[in-house]
């Protein structure tokens, strides 16, 4: 990118950061309580909530990683959008109504309340830390590629810059900033993609022209690069993982009501559909326009800095920056909550003041932000492969204890703990020794299956939780 345009890019990114800092400072007092910092005071309505849910899901894995995925593998991965949405319906039907019955802040709060178990809280918090370190490394990697290419920086320096931006963003704002920036992210994505897609199609050609050019390169690009078996496994990991995803549950906690939550999920579908079609056309068009990029994950940065007209390109690049900082922020918030609220506040120092907990959360953000940098510097794989891998781990240890625990009275403390550990171990073992499809199972499926079997088997043979704990989740719902 040449000088004037590069300066414009940094000015816009700087203005965005100033805006985020402004929102954060404006809400600093509101975010000085845990409820304010992590749950936005439970004030989000359907539209803001929908933007928040979308903004959580549409990470740099989508705006950079998925464009790169479509660039190298064609259209087939796009089928994961509708398949993944099944997970949202599961969340709307089986998770959101009951989990909002506790005034929780984090997913481990649910484990503590439902299973009356400090161990379940601690295990879930630690597992979340591990998985989200990987998820955050994908954001940093995507950001490093973007800033490295656009800004002409060495990759390690670009990763450090992105980590710094994300950390400042999160420390200042908490969930209040995340919610408003989620709306900004939705507007930028809709606006930028709405302008970029017609430009690309008018120059590269229509869908038929793109299809014929891609088919000649490799017929799988316009057909099935990924088979249905793979797509179902990936979608299950992403979709069911969403239903029990810690940051989506934090967002659900942040909403005004159950009805607002359900409507918000619908709004998020609209935003996601637009983004999904946009990233698909970006990836396919770029494969025709520049068939040999140095890396598939370069597709979005190159699109923004070398292909689109300057103003539209700037919008697309800014949308990518907002996406990775916003999702990175959501992940950091979840991690901060796991450390400060669940490990520090509830287990290590239960008498800590509200102020001490918020301070601990901000320290946790800064500290934890450094760990994924090391992973990002190694560039383990394409950005989207890292996201998928993290999602598989997450669904393996969280889906069953959350969804079954919320909908089956018989789930016990020991069952939940066995389910989490067993699911995680099964997924790891399958990934190491069982791919592809040992016993016909993907690692995520093996993890969920092991998790479910252990949940049922152990729960049936161990002492149930107290009637009070069960009543909090089932009493009035079943009565009504």
């Amino acid at each position, binding site marked *: *990118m*040449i000088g004037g345009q*590069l*300066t414009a890019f*940094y000015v816009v990114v*700087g203005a965005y950061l100033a805006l985020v*800092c402004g929102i*954060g*400072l404006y809400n*600093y007092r509101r975010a*000085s309580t845990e409820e304010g910092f992590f749950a936005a005071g439970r004030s989000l309505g359907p539209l803001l909530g929908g933007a928040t849910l979308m903004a959580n899901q549409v990470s740099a894995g989508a705006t950079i990683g998925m464009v790169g995925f479509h660039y190298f593998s*064609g259209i087939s991965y796009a*089928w994961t*959008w*509708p398949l993944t949405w099944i997970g949202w319906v599961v969340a*709307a039907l089986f998770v959101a109504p009951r989990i909002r019955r506790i005034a929780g802040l984090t997913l481990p709060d649910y484990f503590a309340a439902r299973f009356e178990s400090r161990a379940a809280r601690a295990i879930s918090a630690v597992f979340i830390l591990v998985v989200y370190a990987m998820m955050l490394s994908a954001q940093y990697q995507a950001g490093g590629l973007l800033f*490295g*290419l656009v*800004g*002409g*920086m*060495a*990759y390690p*320096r670009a990763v450090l810059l992105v980590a*710094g*931006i994300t950390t*400042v963003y999160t420390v*200042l704002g908490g969930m209040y900033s995340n919610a408003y920036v989620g709306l900004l992210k939705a507007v930028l994505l809709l606006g930028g993609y709405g302008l970029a897609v017609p430009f690309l199609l008018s120059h590269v050609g229509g*869908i*038929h*022209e793109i*299809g*014929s*050019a*891609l*088919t*000649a*390169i490799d017929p799988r*690009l*316009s*057909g099935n690069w990924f088979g249905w078996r793979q797509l179902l496994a990936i979608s299950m990991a992403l979709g069911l993982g969403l239903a029990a995803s810690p940051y989506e549950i934090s967002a659900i906690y942040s909403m*005004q009501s159950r*009805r607002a939550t*359900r*409507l918000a999920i*619908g*709004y998020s579908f609209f935003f996601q*559909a637009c983004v999904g*079609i946009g990233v*698909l056309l970006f990836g396919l068009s770029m494969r*025709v*326009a520049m*068939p*040999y*990029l*140095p890396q598939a994950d370069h597709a979005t940065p*190159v699109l923004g800095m*070398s*292909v*689109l007209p300057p103003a539209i390109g700037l919008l697309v690049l800014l949308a990518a920056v907002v996406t990775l900082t916003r999702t990175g922020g959501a992940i950091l918030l979840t991690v901060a909550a796991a450390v400060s609220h669940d490990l520090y506040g509830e287990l290590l120092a239960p008498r800590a003041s509200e102020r001490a907990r918020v301070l601990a959360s901000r320290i946790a953000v800064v500290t934890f932000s450094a760990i994924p940098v090391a992973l990002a510097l190694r560039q383990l794989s394409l950005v989207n492969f890292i996201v998928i891998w993290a999602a598989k781990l997450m669904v393996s240890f969280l889906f069953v204890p959350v969804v079954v625990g919320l909908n089956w009275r018989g789930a016990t403390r020991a069952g939940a703990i066995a389910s989490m550990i067993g699911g995680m171990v099964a997924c790891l073992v399958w990934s190491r020794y069982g791919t592809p499809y040992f016993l016909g199972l993907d690692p995520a499926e093996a993890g969920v299956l092991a998790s479910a079997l252990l949940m049922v088997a152990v729960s049936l043979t161990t002492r149930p939780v107290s009637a009070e704990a069960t009543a909090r989740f089932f009493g009035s719902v079943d009565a009504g």
Partner: protein
Amino acid sequence: MNRARSRGGRPRLAATALAIASVVTTTSPLSSQGTSGASPADVEIRIEVDSAGRTRVTERFRTAADSALQEGRYQLLARPCAVIGAVAIAGDDRTAPLRVASNDPWQLLTDTANVGAGASTIVIQYQVSRPGGGNIPLVVPTHAIPHRDGARTGSIRLTVRLPDPSARVTFPRVVSLPGTNEWQGQFVAIPSFVNVRLSSGDRPCDTAAPTGRDGGLVWRFWLLVAILVLWVPTYQWWAGRTREGDE
């Protein structure tokens, strides 16, 4: 007391934000620089268009920066209204035509005479005839050109010389060089085509019937769009009719 601490914390937080912003600022160039001042290019592509729409394309590759060029395999995205003449490849002191095979809409070009083998520079030249403006296909090696990490610009420089000041390049993004009819940009990958508009009255010719099989991309794409479009109102209708008490 808490409020006082909170106020005291704001400047510190703002200072942190400013520190990060200063890192960002110091990494950006302070003066606007044209691409001519950028890092040296490993690939130079020059396109010269005359007022009749005849176009001459010259692509110059430094093989020291890209050993994969020795393989001598290239491709070109044919466009319905762009008639491409013979494509010649020149090594240090030899010239030969590239052998052409069709893989519609791409043309596969091979250096069967091994002209590029051992040469320090490879030059590919061809002419494109187009009625009016439109797309100019570019010959692209069938591999990625190496990119230097941390380079401010890509290693591929594209220069387009147009017949008059009112003509312009619309794809990919290039900038007009002051005082000339030339447009220039620097890229990390070679674009498969360049689009030019010779004057405001031009009607690009690229409206002819497309060629090649789409491989099912068209129906797959529209089916996907239909599912996504139908899903949203269906779900929202269900969510909206659910009226349950809460909080």
